[in-house]
């Protein structure tokens, strides 16, 4: 038999080689080298500053001197339940819910078409078309919408030419929905929110539908299900994780937004614009901190509801 000489691995090589050998023998060291920097950043800078901010919610704000003193109190958090503040929370929360539902309804057909009927270049076109609005500045888009929806704007022009002005006036007359014009109505604000967050809803739904094997749909039809039944029994339940993921975006982004509520819609604060006003114009950092806690709590509640509905079971 021929003897084959195996080249011996040199015990010592270049320092780089020795270092990589060390990492290979010590996988834990390797992992900690990878994870410690981002965890430090996340833990110290991100979570640390958030907790510091929330801690300031317990500080006392003197209305007369406008001074913040570190005397701990629950007054700021109880103040959240005063009618004027609680209104802000309710207004923001209901908008977030309605925007999430509407985004899901609008996004689903687009996502379904992308996942089931496009491939290659058409699919790439749809990806770009969905994501391109996100390349433009968000403030510019919100401003553009104020013009589109303004009195004498493009939206009104279309409504006039379609002869639907009475319908528009009727809708704008509904309390809680309407306003004097489209751009100062709740409806207008809702439309802008849905427009801006739509890509965040389309992409997760599309991804969940993409994972659906075609044979499942064929099996459903084969077993006698009409297309509507296949949709209700197979497609929709299996796309729930995608809808849930998308709604987490739309819900939390709406809760925290402070620009769209300032530019479009009737006067009145949202949680985000309230934080902005308290912290900036008024200098009441403790109250701003207390308001900051609201979306965090709401999103935590929302996630637990979504989880209880089993949306993450298929992940």
């Amino acid at each position, binding site marked *: 038999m021929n003897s084959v000489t195996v080249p011996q691995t040199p015990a010592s090589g270049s320092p780089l080689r020795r270092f990589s050998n060390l990492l290979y023998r010590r996988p834990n060291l390797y992992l900690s080298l990878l994870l410690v920097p981002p965890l430090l950043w996340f833990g110290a800078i991100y979570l640390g500053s958030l907790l510091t901010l929330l801690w300031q919610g317990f500080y006392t704000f003197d209305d007369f001197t406008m001074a913040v003193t570190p005397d701990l109190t629950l007054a700021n958090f109880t103040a959240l339940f005063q009618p004027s503040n609680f209104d802000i929370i309710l207004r923001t929360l209901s908008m977030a819910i309605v925007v999430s539902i509407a985004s899901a309804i609008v996004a689903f057909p687009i996502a379904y078409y992308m996942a089931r009927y496009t491939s290659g270049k058409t699919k790439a076109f749809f990806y770009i078309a969905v994501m391109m609005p996100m390349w433009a500045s968000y403030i510019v888009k919100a401003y553009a919408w104020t013009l589109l929806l303004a009195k004498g704007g493009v939206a009104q022009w279309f409504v006039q030419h379609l002869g639907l002005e009475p319908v528009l006036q009727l809708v704008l007359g509904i309390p809680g929905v309407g306003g004097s014009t489209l751009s100062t109505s709740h409806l207008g604000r809702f439309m802008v929110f849905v427009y801006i967050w739509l890509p965040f809803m389309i992409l997760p739904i599309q991804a969940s539908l993409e994972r659906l*094997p075609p*044979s499942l749909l064929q*099996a*459903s039809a*084969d*077993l*006698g299900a*009409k297309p509507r039944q296949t949709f209700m029994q197979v497609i929709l339940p299996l796309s729930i994780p995608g809808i849930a993921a998308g709604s987490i975006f739309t819900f939390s982004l709406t809760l925290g937004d402070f620009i769209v509520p300032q530019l479009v819609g009737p006067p009145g604060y949202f949680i985000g614009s309230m934080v902005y006003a308290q912290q900036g114009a008024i200098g009441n950092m403790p109250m701003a901190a207390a308001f900051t806690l609201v979306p965090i709590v709401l999103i935590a509640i929302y996630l637990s509801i979504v989880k209880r509905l089993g949306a993450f*079971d*298929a992940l």
Partner: protein
Amino acid sequence: MTLAVQFSNVSRQFGEVKAVDRVSIDIQDGEFFSLLGPSGSGKTTCLRLIAGFEQPSTGSIRIHGAEAAGLPPYQRDVNTVFQDYALFPHMNVLDNVAYGLKVKGVGKSERQKRAEEALDMVALGGYGERKPVQLSGGQRQRVALARALVNRPRVLLLDEPLGALDLKLREQMQGELKKLQRQLGITFIFVTHDQTEALSMSDRVAVFNKGRIEQVDAPRHLYMKPATTFVAEFVGTSNVIRGDLARQLSGNPQPFSIRPEHVRFAEGPLASHEIEVSGLLHDIQYQGSATRYELKLENGQTLNISQANVQWLDVSKQHQTGQRISARWAREAMIPLHDNVVGGA
């Protein structure tokens, strides 16, 4: 006798490619019928045409006498067992099986009862509460079978259902499927690329090649009397001899096939009905129940010889590669092949 499924001149074209090309088949009611062929031969497309997932480009498909072309899958009295099983991951086993009854509006207690019966039939009673991911491949296979059979279809389509199972389980399922088919008396149409599977289970087999049918026959005939070179080589192994050698050996230029197990090593005087060739023993493969020898003939062609390993044969007379050797076969074992035959029945 009524026909379960009848294809008349059916073609299915995908762009330039003819996946199914002028196929005509008559499948009898209650028959175990296999569509056998290599991948891309059109057998699966034929199955999908029956199920309604594809529509024929031309031709007519009748299911129990009624024209099916144009009907969607949910209006056909056939059910399919899918290659990947296609179980609904968000439903438990019982709901999967009861699905077909649910969408047809069968009441809850009735469909529960029938689904449980179907699960019992495939020996999965008591598994109803489990999710498909908690089952093994063989168990998923049985759930898929129960889910199709619970609807009491008159025709059951099986798309390579055993392909993902290991050999032992596959052989066991072959036996069970065959038993189930006999017991239920419904038509099974079975797609496979595995010729032993097709031969052992089917009443009749259609051999597909390039979108066309080469031969439709009972397994025994298919093996003993293959009509074309393709069938001879695809079903079992064959020595196809053509050209000058064919003329020299049979006195006829028509190609013929000789099965390896019909060739034996020369011993004693040559009988009048026998044909003898000689060559160099090129390779010997021990296969357990048999040994396969490769003989290189003078014209360069390889002749495969298969000899059963029988205990009482003299093992001391083992052959060596490189050895010059003569082999012979009976004239009647030669099967003339007709390559100009075009498919269809």
